[in-house]
């Protein structure tokens, strides 16, 4: 970016490292003025809280008395003595593994279908996108609970009883609410599909490649950066799901803790039971897990994400 700068007004802005010129200094100062709100927010509301949160995770703290250092006690308790913790880990992981791939698969399928449409594309695009905005609301979470409840629509149609009241199934109901919001990744897929040059398909068709072959050899590789972007974003979001779990389970993570998602249990420990130290430890484990999962995705992406403009580098 910066190297393409054309030095129109020479000496105003040195390309060399130390901006010794007065103009350069002033521009550097201006940059910090523009950055000041962000710097304040990043330090006081992000970096400092991260450090404090790490410290608190080694303490016993209830908001009223001074934090008491307990070393690794919170972590030991979490990993070895708290079955509810592991249940929250289990349901969150199950949810992430079910909801994210399913949501992305539906998003990609619909995006591909829309790509072939001549008419009505804009209409479908907007209509499918709407749930992505509405779905995060408490209103829809309440609708979900009613539809998947005993005597609700799903019970009436499938005769499976209320999902919301059955361990295992309640989690699936929350996952379906996530899948329902496939519009956001779909829109990104669609935009990605439109950027694939048509000549590639024309060349492939000349070489006798069929639809399926074209999909595997052109569409998927060309779309892989967008798949990767969606995967990372949706996974990170899925780890932090809260509102639907809260609504579906009446705020308690039931039945049998099957919708006691990680964040719900963190809220319960910290803000209901006033174990801020324990909740901080949970938060740090979540941070590390999300960091690790993201790192693994970035690492493995080298073998399957294809950047056209970096070819041959």
């Amino acid at each position, binding site marked *: 970016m910066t190297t393409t700068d054309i030095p129109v007004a020479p000496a*105003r802005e040195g390309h060399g490292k130390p901006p010794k010129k007065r103009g350069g200094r002033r521009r550097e100062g201006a940059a910090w003025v523009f950055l000041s709100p962000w710097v304040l927010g990043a330090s006081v509301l992000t970096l400092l809280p991260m450090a404090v949160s790490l410290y608190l995770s080694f303490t016993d703290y209830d908001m009223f008395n001074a934090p008491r250092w307990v070393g690794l006690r919170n972590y030991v308790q979490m990993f070895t003595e708290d079955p509810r913790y592991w249940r929250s880990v289990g349901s969150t992981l199950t949810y992430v593994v079910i909801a994210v791939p399913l949501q992305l698969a539906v998003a990609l399928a619909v995006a591909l279908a829309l790509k072939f449409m001549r008419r*009505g594309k804009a209409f479908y695009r907007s209509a499918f*996108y709407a749930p992505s905005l509405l779905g995060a609301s408490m209103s829809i979470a309440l609708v979900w609970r009613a539809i998947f409840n005993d005597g609700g629509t799903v019970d009436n149609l499938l005769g499976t009883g209320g999902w919301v009241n059955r361990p295992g199934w309640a989690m699936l109901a929350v996952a379906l609410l996530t899948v329902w919001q496939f519009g956001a990744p779909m829109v990104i897929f669609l935009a990605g599909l439109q950027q694939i040059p048509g000549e590639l398909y024309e060349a492939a068709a000349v070489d006798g490649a069929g639809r399926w072959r074209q999909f595997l050899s052109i569409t998927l590789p060309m779309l892989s950066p967008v798949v990767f972007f969606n995967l990372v974003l949706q996974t990170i979001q899925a780890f932090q799901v809260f509102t639907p779990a809260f609504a579906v389970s009446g705020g308690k993570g039931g039945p049998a803790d099957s919708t006691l998602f990680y964040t719900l249990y963190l809220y319960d420990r910290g803000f209901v039971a006033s174990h801020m130290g324990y909740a901080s430890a949970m938060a740090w484990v*979540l*941070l590390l897990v999300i960091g690790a999962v993201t790192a693994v995705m970035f690492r493995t992406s080298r073998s399957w994400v294809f950047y056209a403009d970096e070819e041959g580098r």
Partner: protein
Amino acid sequence: MTAIPPTGTTPPAAAPRRSVPWPRVALHAGALAVLAVMLYPLAWLLATSLKPAKEVIASLNLLPSHLEWSNYTTALEGVNGVSVWQLLTNSLLIAGGAVLGNVLSCSLAAYAFARLRFRFRGPLFAFMIATIMLPHHAVLIPQYIIFNQLGMVNTYWPLILPKFLATEAFFVFLIVQFMRGLPRELEEAARIDGCGPFRSFFLIILPLTRPALITTAIFTFIWTWNDFFTQLIYLFSPEKFTLTLALRSFVDASSQSAFGPMFAMSVIALLPIVLFFLAFQRFLVEGMASSGVKG
């Protein structure tokens, strides 16, 4: 773009023209079927908000036997003695403050990252991007302690103030991406004419960035409006509740008689988002699309 046939399909020009393009009909039929399933929960919500109490459950019929408008009059009375108008005002206040804060602070930071040069720009930009992935919970408890020490718990400050400090890095990134696409010659011409970075920003860059700013404003509004977790933690006086938080009172409610008013209130809480969506869907959809593709 409309004139060119979609790529990937083998051109049917060689075959004699058929009267009905069956693959396309099937495509539309499929899309409409998916759409019907997707819209069902919304139709259900609207229908239930107008149903008499005894029809809510036990009836697969979507349409109510008669329209029970009293659900809405009950809902307007509100929850815990706080009227819906008060709740609505509270929600609007928080969302409005958040929009102002995000647009202002994120565009300032974005301009510095996209256009200005300063020490540590690379590392700081990387850090800013990393905070997009940072789970909110990692900073939640100390933030709560800070706001508690400042006496700001149970006020709107914890919900609005962070937005004035560009804490939602996603929007900084979005605006940076947009600003990078603007031609640099504009500012260079302005610089020759003696424009400093501040005048360049306010007079040249900011007006051109309008689409990204509108996207930021709309998303901030909708996300803040929908946000439940932060409000749940920071607000506890019923008169300070937002619509979202007031709906929480219904979460524990299992009595069927409350169903009609509860869903009437749900409709009221969704209405602003629906209106925003209808008015700005183009910006929303394109804003979302561009965030993932250019990166």
